[in-house]
């Protein structure tokens, strides 16, 4: 992802990291933070212990040298679980962003091309958008047994309409350009033509939108877990750590505050990255929000 953004962001002159950072402090800050968290998620688990290791004797111990982030009500090490939690949260966030972007792109293109498809798909999208996302997600999760995959699907579905709208708007605006209209009227292979013009134009808003989707997906996942409708309770996701710790908040606040802070920082990093990219890639959008 970083490779793509670099291509888009940087002016075609000689690359200077320092200039790039100075010009886009939010992208740099958000990006570095996110990379650090991804690094934790990827390699972290191999350096820490077993997140499932129970130790009932050591329940609800406060943070100390032995348990950096304390222990939870089963005596599990909160630090270890938090590190594993990064993996779950980021995995959910990134996969939701990826899947909803792809699905949204495909549907958006279809809608832009075919008027009949457009009418149907957009009605369905309107309907989906009318249902609050967390509600839609928990309703979908109830349809089947909870699991990471289901959670991702359940978050993707409410996010797709947002992406479809963005892509469709780009397609329609390009479609109405006189040269495209005349080309279509002339019977050229409109699909190819359109795609060549649509993709580059849709990419910027798509990337920006998908960062927001990523951030919101992580929050929704945590919310779902908190409500008991998320990933299975034994999976050490931040939402689960918080959900299980909430009963002990007054005597063991670390079980909520630490994963909560991590979640907030991760969402913050992704949001900053999104804000920066938006300012950079899509000034029109930037002025709007």
């Amino acid at each position, binding site marked *: 992802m970083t490779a793509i953004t670099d291509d888009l962001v940087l002016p075609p002159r000689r690359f200077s990291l320092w200039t790039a950072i100075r010009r886009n402090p939010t992208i740099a800050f958000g990006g570095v933070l996110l990379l650090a968290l991804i690094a934790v998620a990827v390699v972290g688990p191999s350096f820490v212990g077993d997140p499932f290791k129970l130790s009932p004797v050591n329940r609800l111990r406060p943070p100390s040298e032995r348990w950096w982030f304390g222990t939870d009500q089963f005596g599990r090490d909160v630090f270890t679980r938090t590190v594993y939690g990064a993996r779950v949260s980021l995995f959910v966030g990134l996969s939701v962003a990826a899947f909803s972007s792809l699905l949204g792109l495909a549907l958006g293109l279809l809608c832009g091309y075919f008027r009949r498809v457009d009418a149907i798909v957009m009605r369905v999208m309107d*309907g989906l958008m*009318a249902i609050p996302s967390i509600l839609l997600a928990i309703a979908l*999760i109830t349809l089947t047994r909870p699991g990471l995959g289901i959670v991702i699907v359940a978050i993707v579905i409410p996010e797709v309409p947002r992406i479809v709208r963005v892509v469709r708007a780009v397609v329609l605006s390009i479609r109405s350009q006189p040269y495209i209209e005349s080309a279509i009227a002339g019977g050229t292979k409109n699909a190819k033509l359109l795609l060549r013009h649509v993709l580059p134009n849709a990419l910027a808003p798509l990337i920006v939108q998908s960062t927001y989707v990523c951030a919101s997906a992580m*929050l929704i996942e*945590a919310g779902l877990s908190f*409500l008991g409708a998320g990933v299975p309770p034994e999976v050490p996701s931040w939402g689960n750590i918080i959900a299980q710790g909430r009963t002990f908040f007054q005597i063991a606040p670390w079980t909520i505050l630490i994963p909560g802070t991590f*979640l907030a920082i991760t969402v913050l990093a992704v949001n900053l990255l999104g804000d920066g990219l938006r300012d950079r890639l899509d000034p029109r959008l930037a002025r709007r929000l």
Partner: protein
Amino acid sequence: MTAYIVRRLFATLPVMAVVAIFVFFLIRFAPGDPAAIIAGEDATAEAIAQVRAKLGLDRPFMEQFVIWILQMMQGDLGVSIFSNLPVSRLIVQRLEPTVALTLSTLFVAVALAIPIGVLAAWKARKLVDRLVMGFAVLGFAMPVFVLAYILIYFFAVQWQLLPVQGYRPIAEGLWPFVESLILPSVALGVTYMALIARITRASMLEVLAQDYIRTANAKGLATDRVLLLHALKNAAVPIVTVIGIGIALLISGVVITETVFNIPGLGRLTVDAVLKRDYPVVQGLILVFAAAKVLVNLIIDISYAFLDPRIRY
């Protein structure tokens, strides 16, 4: 105008139809046999079949659908599997807390966020602005439930200033009512405030760079008139749009906030129903929430006309 409103009302029908179809299929694709759940812990096969017949689940698909739509139109949302009470009754008795919480959050958030956003735009790049933006970015990343527990810990547990939990209907007195809503509203409202403050600032910044603001300043108008009338009214359309989008966010947040603060509203009903696989209730709630959201969108659309004379119908 009336014609426009009527037209827009009709335009909501397909949306609600999509929601209704979705909701109908929800129960049909649900795992486990709802009839078995209804029939009870150790029901016989005949008992289950009986319940199934009573629910009409043994009829052809299309017939079920038609019956269901007809019932819905009469306001009959079915009967809860667990409490054996009509879904519409469950929803109605839970309506007040949710509406109170949503509206109080909405008003407080809007009343605080817009001035904050205006202030930030006015003092762009100054300390105030940086603080506001910092708050906005943080507020946006803060999970509602974490914030809620922090608030409870300090305001209710440590300092015992406000109730820990619960909802007091307005009939029990204004202060108990307000008191019970302060912490939930704040917890729920922070993200929302962040969102509105951000858009207000951005929108105001754009407007403040416009020629007509220079004109207003050239007239020597007082700063508040320039900011709050000349600039804010122009900045209003995106702000109102985001307020509308944010209401969806609020509804999602309500589900969590009500759980944390033990408020007997629709949000808690939703969570309970979902966790108990009480499908008729889930169905009814999705319909109600979707209808609320569609209604909000409608109101937002109509409000554009009042905010911007250039928008015509």
